[in-house]
């Protein structure tokens, strides 16, 4: 494969627009992540690409050819979706072998066994190959379903929140290995998640969906540094960006004209325990130490502001008077419509 193009694709369910006017290109061998909260349209988009749903408008093209009218089985797309139907009477091994025994696939037994072993090791289910679904935990079942998609090495692999039901440790470990595996195969992959940390960890590019519309498609670094609008800014960060009304902080922030709200990341705010005329006065709401770092939430400028800083920069008590010193040079400026001033369009 294979380049994928969604050309002005929309999908309505009754009078609800699930996705609207999607223009998205996924390049050959790319690991593209769809990022958005629950209900933003990620699953709908994947289902349209797979052919499980048909678009209300627009076309879907693989390598420049329209596949919009093709049913799923003719698109050579592997998918791992959140609801996975496993066969109760088949072992894990049989589940992983099954896609490789489909008609038209000419693999030797040895080749099949090797692929199954490789994918099982990747997903840390090698010890479970002889078990049946009822003998597996939810997280293990999810990995079997994921494995079924990965063994196929299709032109396009679609993964809908593939590590969602795994414990934190496994989630962190597996997502990177998943990407590595896909890259090594030269596979083109589209991966959906609501978690920015997860998206940023693995994506070549991230496509941000808000209310069924694509707001920005960019590398993780550019998305993080230059979110195109307020919704993207709030989505793209493991801690939510702080938003200030420009006129409330104008004296300190000196925003350019046209700025209605400005955003400051928690890691760009220092918390001082001494008065500072150029800092915002406030009261500590709560502190959350996290190893070498801490999150300090402060009531200031009429809202609760979140700051992240190293633990050894000071300890704070709930109710303590403090002063917030954001690095205003790193402000994100947004106009009254919520768009970034000077933003490029997707």
């Amino acid at each position: 494969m294979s380049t994928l193009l969604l050309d002005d694709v929309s999908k309505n369910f009754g009078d609800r627009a699930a996705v609207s006017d999607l223009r998205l290109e996924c390049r050959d061998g790319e690991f593209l992540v769809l990022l958005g909260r629950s209900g933003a349209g990620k699953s709908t988009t994947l289902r349209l690409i797979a052919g499980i749903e048909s678009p209300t408008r627009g076309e879907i093209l693989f390598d420049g050819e329209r596949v919009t009218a093709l049913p799923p089985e003719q698109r050579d797309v592997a998918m791992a979706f959140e609801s996975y139907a496993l066969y109760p009477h088949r072992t894990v091994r049989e589940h992983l072998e099954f896609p490789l025994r489909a008609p038209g696939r000419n693999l030797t037994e040895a080749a099949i066994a090797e692929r199954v072993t490789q994918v099982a090791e990747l997903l840390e289910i090698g010890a479970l190959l002889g078990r049946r679904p009822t003998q597996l935990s939810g997280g293990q079942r999810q990995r079997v379903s994921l494995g079924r998609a990965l063994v196929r090495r299709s032109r396009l692999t679609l993964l809908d929140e593939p590590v969602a039901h795994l414990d934190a440790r496994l989630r962190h470990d597996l997502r990177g290995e998943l990407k590595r595996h896909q890259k090594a195969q030269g596979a083109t992959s589209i991966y959906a998640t609501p978690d920015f940390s997860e998206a940023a960890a693995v994506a070549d590019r991230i496509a941000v969906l808000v209310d069924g519309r694509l707001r920005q498609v960019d590398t993780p670094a550019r998305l993080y540094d230059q979110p195109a609008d307020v919704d993207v800014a709030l989505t793209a960060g493991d801690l939510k960006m702080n938003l200030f009304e420009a006129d409330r902080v104008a004296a300190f922030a000196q925003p350019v004209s046209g700025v209605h709200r400005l955003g400051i990341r928690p890691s760009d705010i220092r918390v001082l325990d001494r008065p500072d005329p150029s800092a915002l006065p406030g009261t500590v709401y709560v502190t959350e130490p996290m190893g070498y770092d801490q999150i300090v939430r402060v009531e200031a400028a009429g809202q609760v502001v979140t700051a992240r800083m190293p633990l050894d920069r000071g300890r704070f008590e709930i109710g303590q008077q403090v002063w917030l010193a954001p690095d205003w040079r790193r402000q994100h400026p947004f106009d009254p419509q919520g768009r970034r001033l000077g933003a490029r369009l997707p």
Partner: protein
Amino acid sequence: MASLTLDNVVKQYGRVTAVHRMSLSVADGEFLALLGPSGCGKTSTMRMIAGLEDISDGEVRIDGKVVNRLQPAQRQIAMSFEHYGLYPHLTLFGNIAYPLTVRGVAERDVQRQVFDIASVLHIDDVLGSFPKEVSSGVQQRVSLARALVRSPSVFLLDEPLSHLDAEMRARMRGELKRLQKAKRSTMVYVTHDQLEAMTMADRIAIMNQGRLQQVGTPKEIYERPANRFVATFIGEPPMNMIDAVVAGGSDGVVLRGPDAGSVVARLDASQSAALAAALPAQGSALAVGVRPTDIDVFGPQEGGLPGRVRLREFRGDDVLMTFDAAGTRLRAIVHRDTPHQPGDPVTLVPRADRLHLFSADSGDAIGHTEDGPGGSRGRSTFLSPAH
């Protein structure tokens, strides 16, 4: 509020010992997290404190009074368990109000207290609904609210936020912590989530396989883990563990890595002297723990641990890199602009003043080379370059 003491408490189910001789004190007004992986014994411990399980041996005391033989209701304990049933025929308001109305609290006070706690937990807008009409996340908060309106000696909370989505959970953690501090409640909070324990607790009691591993403040546990289990359980990404061998150098101890010629770290004279008595003999094996924030990454060079970049994960303010090195996978958190890409050869140099040394056999901590509180905590990877 009251103090809580577990004195050599044991729980046995037939021949299986779920909790081995556990002793623990929770001070009046303290927030203690009982932390550990599933199956570690924390829930059995909680249930013994609550009176839902018999205590096989030892004593549980509340404010000095032995409560082993007391029924749950007599122990002055308020609990919120993950699946603590709500009364289906009462509204959410009625459920939360129940402990108050049952005690004959005046109507107006009931209203106020219920609304206060409901608004802190962000459920004040659904109080008129019935349990089956709302999500599990809301139900869980109702159960929590019902415990929190009471004035018991001790609060016991078992994974009270587990059904909430990540964002709501983060918010509720802060609110719960504020509430506990404001009311000076004695709270025992059971969780498997180390981040939750670290952010909320005054002290953490970590358990594994029925045994208490360590009790300390979040800072103590993070900086001075008592054994390998604690060291790798606390902190995400987890601490790296490197197999090393003790060797002698001209200036001090050298910890050799598994690959020929590789070096985990060279201890200076004062570090070597401080650890001399505790280190095993030269030629012995040792496990060296070092956190991802405490490893420097260079292009190939002499010394250190040779390796290759396996993964590179962008995190916003920095980058998490995974390497194949020292016969295992090692991780380092480095600055965003680091040039190394997957496949590149590198040399990893753990910081000698940030090491945690563990016995190769028992896994117990031998020593930590970190500086004291005033020491150079040094390079923070979370500040923007402007700082």
